[in-house]
């Protein structure tokens, strides 16, 4: 099964209860597929249970990357969440597990 990790790198971090994930196409020619696969809807479906708020996907055509910004994403934020991954460092790898066969 083809995963987002096959065509892109990703890294996540936190600000309060907002988690963002930078997703970078591994090659320029893969960027259009990244844009097709990484949408607010696909991210919401894949990370259901982890993210409760709005999701925005910003484009960075200059580096063939997108920035996924998710609100209500960390169980209240690093200081009050009961999650083990308090600062959302593994949210990016969670998204990289997303199957993309049917998305592009």
């Amino acid at each position, binding site marked *: 099964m083809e995963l987002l990790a096959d065509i892109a*790198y990703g890294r996540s971090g936190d600000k*309060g209860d907002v988690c*963002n994930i930078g997703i*970078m196409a591994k090659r320029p020619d893969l960027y259009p597929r990244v844009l097709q696969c990484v949408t607010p809807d696909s991210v919401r479906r894949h990370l259901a249970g982890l993210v409760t708020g709005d999701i925005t996907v910003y484009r960075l055509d200059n*580096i063939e990357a997108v920035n996924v910004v998710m609100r209500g994403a960390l169980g209240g934020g690093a200081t009050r969440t009961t*999650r083990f991954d308090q600062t959302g460092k593994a949210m990016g790898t969670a998204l990289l597990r997303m199957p993309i066969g049917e998305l592009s």
Partner: protein
Amino acid sequence: MTRRVRIGSGSAYWGDMFEPAVALAERGDVSYIGFDFLAELTMSIFQRAKAKDPEKGYIPDLLTLLRLILPAAREHGVKLILNGGAANPAAAGRAVAALAAELGYKGLRVGTVSGDDILGQLDDLATSGWVFENLDTGERGLDSVRGDVVAAHAYIGSEGIVGALADGADIVITGRVADSALYVAPLMHEFGWTFEDPDWDRIGAAITLGHLVECAECVTGGMSNVWDLARCPWDIGFPILDVTDASDGVSAVLEKTPGSGGIVNQWTVKEHLLYETHDPASYLMPDGIGDFTTLQIEELGDDRVRLTGMSGRARPETLKAQIGYRDGWIGEGQVVFSWPDAPGKARRGMEFLQHRFAQAGIDPLALEMRFLGVDALHGDVAPPMPTDPDELCLRVAARTRTREEADVVRREVTHLWTVGGLGTAFGTPSPPRPVIGLWPTLVPRAAVNVSWNVEEVR
């Protein structure tokens, strides 16, 4: 006229490694090193330390680090800019001056920057009609938490550091400045830029560059998609910005300490460009707005990357502020179930806890039960549990209103050590910890009075 300056980054957080920072001072050929010690929670921790002792409230690592790095910094004329003053830059300055005197650095000039602490101004601002809208939740007005507020700090910009550098400071110690300001400040100072006659593309470039290095090792192969390619991470090199200010704008080469481990390439720069950011066209900082969508990245080889095309816009008239308030407790525990039938024992263990919590009348605000090594990181996104694992580590965490409730959670997990199934093992339980809730908001720039002070070590 084309000018150049080299700036290193020496710390990403409170607790970071000291040796790579010392190596930067010794071998980096840098004029400045910036150090970040502060996370969102840190200010509340140190505000409470300061409340107990007026000479505390700054990062204790500051003195350990300076003792190690001052010899090389003095020998090579490296100026140090550190936000380790946390909630008490003035006390940190006194402690640093005493350390410098002890080490024999008479004549060293120690600067401190203050004004970020706005705890004493909250009520006046509220009276004047400011509503402190919570940027996470949209809630307006601090009424629901005001009685529990322990800290309030605005993210101030570079102006205090620039002032201290202009007054000849060799070391500048700040509280809650924006991380990027640790790097914007020396660029403003060296290149003679001002906010009176601002060039926002240049300042936007400085903000972008500061953002790229502010987490030190996180742009040189730490926390990286290409970590497997990073050489000798135990000798990781911290980043260096070699910045050029020319008639056509600002460009830079991002590199790392010569002879160090780690890696710098397009991926380490891209992954950090987006790290902990929101709208990449509007990276809002107190010094201006960085636009990351115009940056061009070119690999030069040998762990060097050229950065051009950076731009920005005018600084906002509001400053971000973080208000910390007491927000209950977290009780936590771990227990490891053994083969045979570790999953079955784990299920009964969780059932045990639910019953015991109910019997004790505990009603946690949030309760998390996940298996370390299975789904503690990715939750429901993780693949199903393996069919017959040799061991399973259950982690339980609950957020509660009171310390007593949190302690019940901790205690009941430990009871599984003896009341649980055969072969159940355990680690050391951690005591309940107080929760600091964070209220991110904006405050008017005009309400924040940044000042600085530089004193010579005698």
